């Protein structure tokens, strides 16, 4: 087990190098000089050759490209992702400040989606081809097809503007009580979790169908266990393992979705920071947010893989 973890960690090194190179290349090799883009977006500065050269030197843009990458990489190791071209704040500090908001939203969305998806998937597998299965199938396809930004706006329309039950946007704080946090959290978390719930429900259904057809389930039934015990104690436990492995991949959808959901609900997280910095053409900040999102995604997947290996004794560590 220990060797497996070490090997997985070592395998991450080339992956991280590749990712850092792509993110670096993204904003440095492509046409357009970041300094003039930044200056053109700020009407208060009239760019002259001198300021441009000075700024280029400040950001290291006058050096050869590969040297720039090495500097970028070296700074990354020191935890330095540069400073925002817009607010002059260090990129990492800005992202770090917004991390709790994004984590709160993502975890809540994950919980909501699992709570919806597992019962739906289990019921439709147990009652395969019944009307309830068909209803769930249509429901999950609608869930997958529904744009999250539309769902979010509809919820706002219904629960905030018409019924006035929930605050329109923003994040609640624990200093105002748990109720404040939950009332702000429920709509964005549901918006973000809904599409994922649909995907997970479909996976749960097919995974359960596979397990229910296996010999040990027949044995459990044959020895006279109640149907409840067969499904929940024997089948579900094994059916959940493949679902667990895809949770990591699904987390990527969650991160992507958080960009949209945070923007709609004015949620002060990294997703909204990414959108705002794209609008402000704040390239170091864009670079930082893409990098942090990708790192989170990779770490979660690594964690899922390791846990998976720990849970399922059939997995070989090589």
């Amino acid at each position, binding site marked *: 087990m220990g060797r497996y973890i070490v090997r997985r960690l070592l395998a991450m090194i080339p992956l991280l190098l590749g990712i850092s190179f792509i993110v670096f290349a993204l904003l440095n090799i492509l046409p357009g000089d970041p300094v003039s883009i930044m200056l053109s977006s700020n009407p208060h500065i009239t760019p002259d050759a001198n300021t441009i050269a000075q700024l280029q030197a400040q950001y290291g843009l006058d050096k050869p490209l590969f040297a720039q990458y090495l500097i970028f990489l070296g700074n990354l190791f020191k935890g330095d992702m540069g400073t925002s071209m817009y607010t002059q704040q260090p990129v990492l500090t800005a992202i770090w400040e917004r991390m709790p908001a994004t984590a709160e939203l993502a975890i809540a969305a994950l919980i909501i989606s699992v709570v919806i998806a597992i019962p739906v998937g289990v019921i439709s597998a147990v009652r395969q081809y019944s009307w309830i299965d068909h209803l769930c199938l249509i429901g999950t396809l609608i869930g997958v097809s529904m744009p999250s930004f539309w769902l979010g706006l509809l919820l706002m329309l219904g629960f905030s503007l018409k019924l006035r039950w929930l605050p329109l946007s923003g994040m609640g704080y624990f200093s105002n009580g748990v109720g404040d946090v939950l009332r702000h959290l429920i709509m964005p978390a549901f918006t973000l979790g809904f599409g994922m719930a649909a995907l997970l429900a479909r996976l749960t259904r097919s995974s359960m169908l596979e397990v229910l057809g296996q010999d040990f389930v027949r044995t459990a039934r044959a020895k006279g266990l109640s149907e409840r015990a067969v499904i929940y104690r024997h089948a579900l436990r094994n059916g959940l393992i493949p679902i667990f492995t895809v949770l990591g991949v699904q987390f990527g959808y969650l991160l992507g979705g958080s960009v949209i959901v945070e923007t709609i609900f004015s949620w002060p997280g990294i997703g909204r920071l990414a959108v705002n910095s794209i609008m402000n053409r704040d390239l170091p900040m864009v670079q930082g947010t*893409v990098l942090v999102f990708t790192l989170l995604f990779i770490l979660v997947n690594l964690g899922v893989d390791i846990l998976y290996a720990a849970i399922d004794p059939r997995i070989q560590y090589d």
Partner: protein
Amino acid sequence: MEQLETAQQTKLSPFRQSRGWQQFRRNRLATLGLVIVLILWGATLLAEYVATHDPYEMDLANPFLPIGSQGHLLGTDNFGRDVFSRIIWGGRASLTVGIVVVGISASIGLILGVISGYYGGWIDLVIMRITDLFFAFPFFILAIGVIAALGPGLQNVMLVLGLVTWPEYARMVRAKTLALREEPFVESARAAGAKDLRIMFYHILPNCLGPVIVMATLGMANAILAAAGLSFLGMGVQPPEPEWGSMLNEARIYMRTAPHLIIIPGMIIMLAVLGLNFLGDGLRDALDPKMPTARQ
């Protein structure tokens, strides 16, 4: 009666007798999906004739008209533009995105996948490491990162989504190629002196077509959804050009006064994506023999 039916069936063309077509027809959801797709895209392609107004024409005296008023089927927006006509014309952007994105990603994925699977060795290793790298990014995040560098616009959105989604095709085609490479018909083609290129493109790729069609249909749905999301964030189609996602974005501030401006474009996006998802799901049942079929 049964005999009569079989007699009729023998008259049908080989295509309509085929197992796939029979499977597909039996799936009512897939048929519904096909109907939705045909209606929406038919209306979009014939936008000149279907739209009742010029999608850009403003009528500042009549903003926010409700659904079904004064000859405006779906009302008017904040500039008094006809919502129905903007929806119909806006479909062109989504249709184009769907086709171009799938075109780009499927071509790259198919070519790299078949090369990777056919030659194996270090070529396979390099190509697969590249696909791993792409899978390491959350897809939408990478897309907005590239848009940030390239700048907003429909062309860039299509390019980005195409370049970000090909690894799925590559992996699938590679796996298929690995299996097909050992098949007798490939061996015999090689024995007959066929060149590598001919084997890859005439013998192997056509046999991957089923899953590729399914993947392309579902991929088109995802591309439309992602492009609408990017336009909603202001990174795709720019106003005043009509597009479903950017119509929603424009309507956000008027949510209180004119909720129909939010409800309609979103519903259309969902219908377009849902139609493709129904269709793709049914096609998978019909074309992929490994999947459990008979969902009657």
